[in-house]
Each structure stands twice: as structure tokens, then as C-alpha cells.
């Protein structure tokens, strides 16, 4: 019996230790941001991006910051940003500073989870006039306050396969500058290059939003509901859909059987691809033999149009180290660090002076993307963009395949999205 007793005491002790261990873990996590004297640690949340160079640039950035301030950086990598950030915000474990994609800014700002940077910027007389206006304004909330500072941006461009153009008897200078001429040009290419698809695209709202808004209508209403079924939106997108469903001059990369637009373009099976500037480094590493170039999009309905995607650094409103967080944001968006980061990662810097210093406006491959930053439509559309986007991307492949008409598809997407939006508000 004595043995038994000993055992039970032991087990109780083990149980108590386990419980203490669990409690210890959680309390440790919570007090991490406490920041006592000595070495301080700042948690920074980000996603990795596609190129290894980007990670390298980010690591240098963090190292420079630690060298400069003595504050250590605890990295938190997001593999599924939307889901994980939301879980972190719910659980109160979100990092002090994290990436915010411009499209998410409206919903995060209205939920009050982002700290306004305006007062910090005012105190330090932070000069924001150097940023490209669309990238800076993307992080301005509806209350006029600033909720993030852009780290970089990307616009889209028209990638062309120079060898295939040559085979068809053209050069890059023959690429038409307006939408109707361009679609006619694709038809010519189709007859001249059998077995080649003239153009590949991605069936994504982020890639089609500027086309849909080219006739003057917005894809959302004033109250932020879906407005995809607006006749003006439908008529703006119809030529692109027809080019796929009827003419087969434009195919989505999925219809061509590829995993991404870059793979489709790199396989030499398409002449054109509409992709972001991020494809430049991807093509250079993965398709070294490909002879390609970039140019600006043709005008749509007589106007220059493009999309601009930007990601910024924002501060967690629940952070316990707001001063350190601001120091970090100020440091990483400074001219010097921005240039280091943009050069190493080969991304487009959000500061005009840095773009100039890097010689991007004279760079043959990058110039079309930099030029588009002046007139592009930002990838932002109210607080319900995620819902609207998901409904659009659910139905639009069937419209491209001609299985449903575009008007029906967009009507269905709009109704379904608005039903869900109503569910959130009621």
C-alpha cells in the first residue's frame, strides 16, 4: 500500500507540473511584449513571398534594425495570411507590427485592430510626400488617419514572347496600343502561329477589376456591397470573355493546363501574359532561355488603366511596445533601408526618390510597371472585398469556358455575395 501511496503522490505532482507547465507557457507568451530593461524583442509578422531573394532582403532589414536599435526581432511567418492573422487577432497573439495588404486595410481599420500612425508621424515630422500617392493613400483610413506605410508595390504589365512575335513576323513595336486593335492583333497571331495561344490570363478579380471599372461603374456600391452585375461592369468585361469563350485567343492558365500564368508563359505556348512585376524575377530564375520583354497595357476605352497592389507595415493596436513598433516602421520605410530591400529583393520601391536612385525609370523591363504607378487602380474595394472576390472567382472560370453567360455569372456572384454581406450586418 505504501508503494501505491507513493505512486499517487508522484502522479499528482506530475499532473500539477503539467498544469503549471501549460499555464507557464501561456503566461510567458502574454508577457513577451512586456519589454523589461535589457534586450527588448519586437514581434513582426509577414509572409514569405515567392523569391528567396525577398527573404534575404528581409533578413538584412531585420539585422540592420537590431544593429541600429538593439531591439531583437521575433519573426512570425504567415503561410495563410488571411486565416492566420484573423486567428491571431481573435486570440490576442497578433504581432506588434505586421504586413497589411492594401485590400484588407478597410476591414482591419474599421475593426479597430490597427493603430493610427498619424500622431507618431506628426511628432517625428515624417515626410510622406516621397511616396507614390496611390501607395500612400492605400493606407489612409476613411477617417483621414494613416494606418500603415507602404513597403513596396507592384503594377501589372504586358509580357511578350519576343521569339514568337518574330516567328509571326512582328516586333515589339507592332504591339497595338488600344484594346480593340490589340484583340484584333491576337486574332492575327492565332492564325499565324498554330498551336500557340495568343494570350494567357488569370481568372482573378484582382486582375480584372480595372477592366470592369473602365466604363465608369464601380464593382462595389457606395455602401460596400457587390455591384458586379451592373450592366456597365458586364459590358466592360464582355470583350475579354468573348476572346476566350468565342475566339479562343485568350485562355486562362488553368484552361491551358498550367499551375500558374508564369508557367504557361514560360512554356512558350503563349505570346502574351498579363502579370505583375513580380513575374520579372521569376522568369529570370526559372526560364533563363526565354526571350521576353514587357510593355504597358493597351488603353482600355481610350484610357490608360492598370492595377496597383501594395503591401505596407501596420502597427497592432493592442501592441504593448508601440514606441518600438513605430521605430521599426520608421526604420524599415526609410530611404536607405527601402533601397537596400528593393534592390536585393528586386521589388518596386514605394518611394519615388528610391526608384530614381535605382534607375528603374530607365530600366527596360521595369519602366512599364513604374509608369503605371501613376494611373493604376489600387486593389481596394471596401470591407467586403474578400467575399466578393471569392464569389467572383468561384463562378468566373465557367464564364470564360462559355458554360454560363457573363451576365448570369456576375448576377449570381453579386446575389450570393450580397446575401453574405447582409448576414454580417444584420
Amino acid at each position, binding site marked *: 500500500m505504501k508503494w501505491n501511496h507513493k505512486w499517487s503522490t508522484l502522479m499528482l505532482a506530475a499532473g500539477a507540473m503539467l498544469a503549471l507547465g501549460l499555464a507557464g507557457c501561456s503566461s510567458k507568451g502574454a508577457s513577451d511584449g512586456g519589454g523589461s530593461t535589457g534586450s527588448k524583442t519586437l514581434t513582426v509578422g509577414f509572409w514569405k513571398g515567392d523569391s528567396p531573394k525577398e527573404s534575404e532582403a528581409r533578413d538584412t532589414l531585420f539585422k540592420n534594425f537590431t544593429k541600429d536599435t538593439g531591439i531583437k526581432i521575433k519573426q512570425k511567418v504567415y503561410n495563410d495570411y488571411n486565416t492566420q492573422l484573423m486567428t491571431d487577432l481573435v486570440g490576442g497573439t497578433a504581432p506588434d507590427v505586421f504586413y497589411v495588404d492594401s485590400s484588407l486595410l478597410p476591414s482591419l481599420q474599421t475593426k*479597430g485592430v490597427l493603430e493610427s500612425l498619424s500622431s507618431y508621424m506628426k511628432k517625428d515630422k515624417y515626410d510622406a510626400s516621397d511616396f507614390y500617392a496611390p501607395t500612400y493613400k492605400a493606407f489612409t483610413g476613411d477617417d483621414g488617419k494613416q494606418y500603415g506605410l507602404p513597403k513596396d508595390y507592384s503594377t501589372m504589365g504586358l509580357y511578350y514572347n519576343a521569339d514568337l512575335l518574330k516567328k509571326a513576323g512582328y516586333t515589339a513595336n507592332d504591339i497595338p496600343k488600344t484594346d480593340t486593335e490589340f484583340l484584333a492583333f491576337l486574332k492575327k497571331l492565332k492564325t499565324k502561329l498554330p498551336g500557340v495561344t495568343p494570350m494567357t490570363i488569370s481568372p482573378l478579380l484582382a486582375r480584372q477589376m480595372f477592366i470592369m471599372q473602365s466604363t465608369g461603374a464601380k464593382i462595389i456600391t457606395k455602401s460596400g456591397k457587390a455591384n458586379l452585375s451592373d450592366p456597365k461592369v458586364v459590358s466592360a468585361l464582355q470583350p475579354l470573355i468573348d476572346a476566350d469563350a468565342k475566339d479562343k485567343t485568350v485562355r486562362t492558365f488553368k484552361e491551358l493546363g498550367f499551375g500558374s500564368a508564369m508557367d504557361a508563359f514560360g512554356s512558350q505556348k503563349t505570346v502574351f501574359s498579363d502579370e505583375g512585376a513580380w513575374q520579372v524575377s521569376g522568369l529570370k530564375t526559372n526560364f533563363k532561355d526565354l526571350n521576353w520583354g514587357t510593355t504597358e497595357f493597351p488603353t482600355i476605352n481610350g484610357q490608360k488603366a492598370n492595377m496597383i497592389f501594395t503591401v505596407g507595415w501596420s502597427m497592432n*493596436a493592442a501592441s504593448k511596445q508601440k514606441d518600438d513598433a513605430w521605430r521599426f516602421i520608421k526604420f524599415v520605410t526609410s530611404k536607405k533601408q527601402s533601397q537596400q530591400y528593393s534592390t536585393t529583393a528586386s521589388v518596386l520601391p514605394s518611394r519615388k526618390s528610391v526608384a530614381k536612385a535605382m534607375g528603374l525609370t530607365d530600366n527596360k523591363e521595369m519602366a512599364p510597371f513604374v509608369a503605371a504607378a501613376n494611373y493604376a487602380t489600387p486593389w481596394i474595394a471596401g470591407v467586403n472585398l474578400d467575399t466578393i472576390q*471569392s464569389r467572383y472567382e468561384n*463562378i468566373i472560370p465557367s464564364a470564360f469556358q462559355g458554360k454560363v453567360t457573363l451576365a448570369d455569372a456576375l448576377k449570381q456572384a453579386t446575389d450570393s455575395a450580397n446575401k453574405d454581406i447582409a448576414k454580417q450586418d444584420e
Partner: protein
Amino acid sequence: MARKSERKRDITQAAAFVAPMLLVLLTFTLFPIFYSLYLSFHKVNLVGNVSYQFVGLKNFINAITDERVMIALRNTLKYVAIVVPVQTVLALVLATVLNSGIRFQKTFRSLLFIPTLTSSSALTLIFMFIFSLNGPINSLLMKLNLLAAPINFLNDQNSVMGAIIVMNIWSTVPMFMTIYLSGLQDIDMAMYEAADIDGANMFQKWFKITVPQIAPVTNYVVMMGLISTFQLFDQPYIVSGGSGGPNNATLTLSLIIYQYAFRQFGTMGYASAIALLLTLVVFLISMVFRHFSSENVTGEGR
């Protein structure tokens, strides 16, 4: 007195042994269940200003009248109705073959078990390649002149679920086959010997002895199959990028719950309500199944 203190000691001891498991069970199973039950009756905002607003049965009524939930339910039921019978029959047939004493029996067993060991997301990516426009299946069908043009299995609303069904059956059959294999060891060889003497052929033995004798294992396999197929999530998520497309063809109940819970603000309560309805559906179907299936194989000693 002595006995009383001994009893007390026994209880303490028992409690100490159970405590760790109980703690885990409470935190990770019971608490989430009751919390989601609570959430399903509320309109919840968990991000920023946390708020719970009681809305009664509204989430449930919304769910029943929601067209997308009905599409998801239909897709899920169709998937279950095909996958569960096919995987059960296939698993039993394979197990019988591998138990019949053919050559390289052990090698085949190991080879066939490999799919179960691979992670389902990796499997999905491999199958996405196999089913892709330029993938092996299309080129094989083209070479055999069965197809004039390749089919885009994963981008077509009519075929994408079929592709998911095939990949799932392939990956789950081995697991159930292994369970059947162990069940087959328990069948009394004397019955087969008796059947041999009576002149029964292979098929008669299989239908009259193996199938009825293995019924308890079948019950287990079908039940597990039902539960896991109703939770179909990873394949549709990866194939459709989380949207459930093309044209809602891969929208399953688990996917719709995920969309409302984690992709959209303010609908956590609604997602919980759908989750509760899913639980109810699985529970009811399992109960009906149990009612009609008999565990009494031999008719003796029960």
C-alpha cells in the same frame, strides 16, 4: 477505518491517473464543443471590439434557407454516397486477395499501404498534376484514342468532383483494407474447410462466409468512412483555392464553414450553426445506419 482510508487513497490515485487526460479532453474537446454551441445562437464579433449578441435560432433558419449551404450539402451527400460504398467494397476485395496467400503478399500489403502514409495535401498536388490538361491521364486517353481533345478535369464544373472522388478513394482504401485484413484473421478456418468439403466455389465462400463473418468490421469501416467523408475539406480547398469553384462544384460543408468562420468577419456564429447542423446530419445518418446493421454474426451467445 483502514478500509475507508484505503478507498480514499484509491480514488486519489485514480484521479491522478485520469487528470492529465481529462484536462486535455476538457480544453480541446468539451470546451470547444460547448463554445461553438454558444456561438451558434449569437452574432459574434471576435476581432477588435469583441461582442456577443443573442439572436436565437436565426443563424439556423438562415442556414436552412441559404442556397449555398444547400449546394454544399448536396455536393457533400453526393460525395459520401459514392465514396463510402466504393471504398468499403474495394477495401474488402483487396483484403481478401491479399489474404489468399498469393505470391509477394507482404510486399503488396506494404506497397498498397503507402498512400495512407502520405499527407493528403501532397497527394492532392500529385493528383492535380495527374489530372491536369497535359498530365498522364489525358495523354493516356489520347494515345488510346478514347479522347479527341484533353479534358480539363480540375477546371470543369462537371468533372472536378469526380477527380476528387477518385483521389480520395485511392488514398483511403488502404487504411480500411488493413482493418479488414486483421478482421479476416479472426474468421474460423474450419468454416472454409467445411465449405470445401461441401464443394463450394471461391465466390460462394466469399459471399456466404467472408462477407457475413466480417460484418462487425464492415460496420466499423462504414461508420468511420461516413464520418470522414462528411468532413471533406483539404482536396476541395486546394483544388479551388478556397473558393469552392468552379461554379460551386467543389463547395462542401466543411469548406463553407471555413469560409464563414475564417475568411469573413462577423459570421463566426453562422459558421458554428452550420457546423452544428453538419454534426446533426452525421449523427442522424450514423444512427440510422446502426439501427439497420446487425453486429450479431453467428447468432450464438448474444
